[in-house]
């Protein structure tokens, strides 16, 4: 068994704001093998982006990694000094971001920005760098690369900008590429092209990819393994097909059910998950999903579940698991997915839960 490229152990990142301590990432642990494609999936605000930023030490004030280890090729990144970390950034681990228009410097040429990434980590003569820049643009399938390399970001289309960012990320042949919602700001057709590009690059260069997204379809298209995050924790992880086939955590299950499917029965209603994610300053006791979970039991209110193996190579953090939900709670034919509907368990004299409807009434106008 080869040593993992990246081992994240018990990562905790908190934000110390005026309103309180926001516990954005709590106890996240996962591995990435060399050349693997891993997806991190979750709603907005579940901590997936913060996790990625923590890997590269890009978390700004008032946020800070408060605990954990990030072992990359044998080194704990959290123990490196600024200079050493800078060497890793852009060279061994590269990161590309969501909105390529705002993520590229508007006053510098594309070619300059790509070459800059190389110049920062290599001492190669300028002409060679320029040539490599053009080659990179060709590799990411930007037409007319020799001329377009001199353009400014605003002269590129959205899809091309994202390709340029990918070129920038790959310029130093990193072992790991982290892509934070790379297709969210793009049209659907362009999304498909970018994903295909990433897939091809993964095969050609052998760089591992961590893909962060809230879109399950994208994960299915690119990744081999997936981590599902909710409210700052990993609630389930495993191979993509397996998870899609039989998700064990109720949240994953709900997510999959809320995605419209071409092959579904037209009469089947689209189910959504009621409620909102919890307040990360003031978290509920026990399982963080319990205010919204249709299958919750008494234990869910008092003890936070531990992540455990629920099937071969698949882990979930749940006291119930879908297996039991199917067996005991008729999950297969469920109609009402409101909190506690299937298990019939509601908080009684326990810590009052955040009433989802009350939260909605107070939403900003």
């Amino acid at each position, binding site marked *: 068994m080869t040593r993992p490229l990246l081992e994240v152990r018990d990562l905790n990142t908190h934000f110390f704001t005026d309103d309180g301590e926001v516990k954005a990432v709590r106890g996240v642990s996962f591995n990435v093998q060399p050349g693997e494609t891993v997806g991190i999936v979750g709603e907005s605000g579940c901590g997936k982006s913060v996790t990625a930023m923590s890997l590269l030490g890009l978390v700004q004030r008032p946020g800070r990694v408060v605990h954990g280890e990030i072992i990359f090729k044998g080194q704990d990144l959290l123990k490196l000094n600024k200079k050493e970390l800078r060497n890793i950034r852009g060279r061994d681990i590269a990161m590309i971001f969501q909105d390529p228009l*705002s993520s590229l410097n508007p006053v510098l040429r594309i070619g300059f920005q790509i070459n800059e990434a190389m110049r920062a980590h290599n001492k190669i003569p300028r002409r060679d760098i320029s040539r490599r820049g053009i080659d990179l643009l060709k590799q990411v399938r930007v037409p007319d690369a020799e001329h377009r390399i001199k353009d400014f970001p605003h002269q590129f289309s959205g899809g091309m900008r994202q390709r340029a960012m990918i070129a920038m990320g790959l310029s130093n042949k990193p072992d790991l590429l982290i892509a934070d919602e790379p297709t969210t700001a793009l049209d659907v057709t362009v999304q498909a092209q970018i994903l295909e590009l990433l897939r091809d690059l993964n095969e050609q260069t052998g760089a591992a990819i961590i893909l962060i997204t809230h879109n399950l379809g994208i994960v299915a298209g690119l990744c081999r393994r997936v981590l599902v995050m909710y409210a700052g924790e990993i609630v389930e992880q495993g191979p993509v097909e397996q998870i899609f086939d039989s998700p064990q955590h109720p949240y994953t299950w709900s997510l999959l059910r809320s995605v419209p499917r071409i092959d579904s029965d037209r009469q089947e209603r689209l189910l959504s998950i009621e409620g909102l994610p919890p307040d990360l300053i003031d978290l509920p006791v026990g399982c963080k999903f319990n205010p919204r979970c249709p299958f919750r039991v008494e234990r869910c209110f008092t003890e936070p579940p531990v992540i455990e193996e629920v099937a071969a190579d698949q882990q979930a953090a749940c006291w119930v698991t879908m297996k039991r939900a199917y067996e005991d709670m008729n999950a297969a034919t469920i109609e009402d997915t409101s909190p506690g509907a299937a298990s019939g368990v509601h908080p009684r004299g326990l810590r009052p839960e955040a009433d989802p409807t009350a939260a909605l009434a107070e939403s900003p106008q």
Partner: protein
Amino acid sequence: MAVVAAPRADQEFISSTVVREQASLWRDGLRRLRRNRLALVSAVYLILLAIVALVALVWTPYPTSAIGVAPIYSGPSGSHLLGADELGRDLLSRLMAGAQISLAVGLLSAAIVLGIGVVVGLTAGYFRGWVDGVISTVINIFYGIPALLVALLMVTVLGRSFTNVVIAISATVWMDVARLVRGQTLSLREREYVEAARASGARNLKILFGHILPNALGPIIVAVTFVIPSAILFEAFLSYLGVGIPPPTPTWGAIASEGVQALRLSPHILLFPSLALSLTLLAFNFLGDGLRDAFDPRQKR
């Protein structure tokens, strides 16, 4: 200029997961303003100044034009708290009266500039087309002329008086507000509620004053708050150069101008009006800053 960025990981994080009671913009802004100590101190100072100015309307320690009530050039003393000037007039009384002038000039100019600026800006921004073209050209022409010189010339040609000074000042600063209002109008007119209002048959005037103006109010108020110190500074400059409000009216700039002549003998004649001017301008600027920080919808962090 700055491109609008998609929410960053941590920003999006903090704003989407914290489900808190959302105060309205005004309540939130006032709360933030109250926390800004400099702005509060400034507001207190300005209120005191206003009180002094009002008091001066009916009473000052000595008549402001009374010559020889104190030995000329005398420094601060028991009976004359701030000393006397080169004609033996009590400086404190003159400064109190000067406060009236400064505040009056400042507020009046701001009011005029607000009126003109809003009307012009709304018209240009809402109707666009050739109307906007003409107005924008006029604004640009006004921008191309050095303000102080215009004011100088206006006062020289029209004669020295309070009214003329205010007119001259207003004529040279209205463009900033007009441009601001125009910009706000241009962007606000595309908003959905304007569409809705127009679709339901509202008349243009109503849209302008009922929908667009209230929403542009924030930056406008801030801009106008900065017009006041500009106007006061302007007036001080004019008085200092000897082309402001004619003597014996005691404006701070004029007193400072007299003070420069006697700098070696009696520095207090220059010092006190300069201090008054500086503190007042500082106060308005701090207050303006505070207002802008409090009501600017953009988050800082």
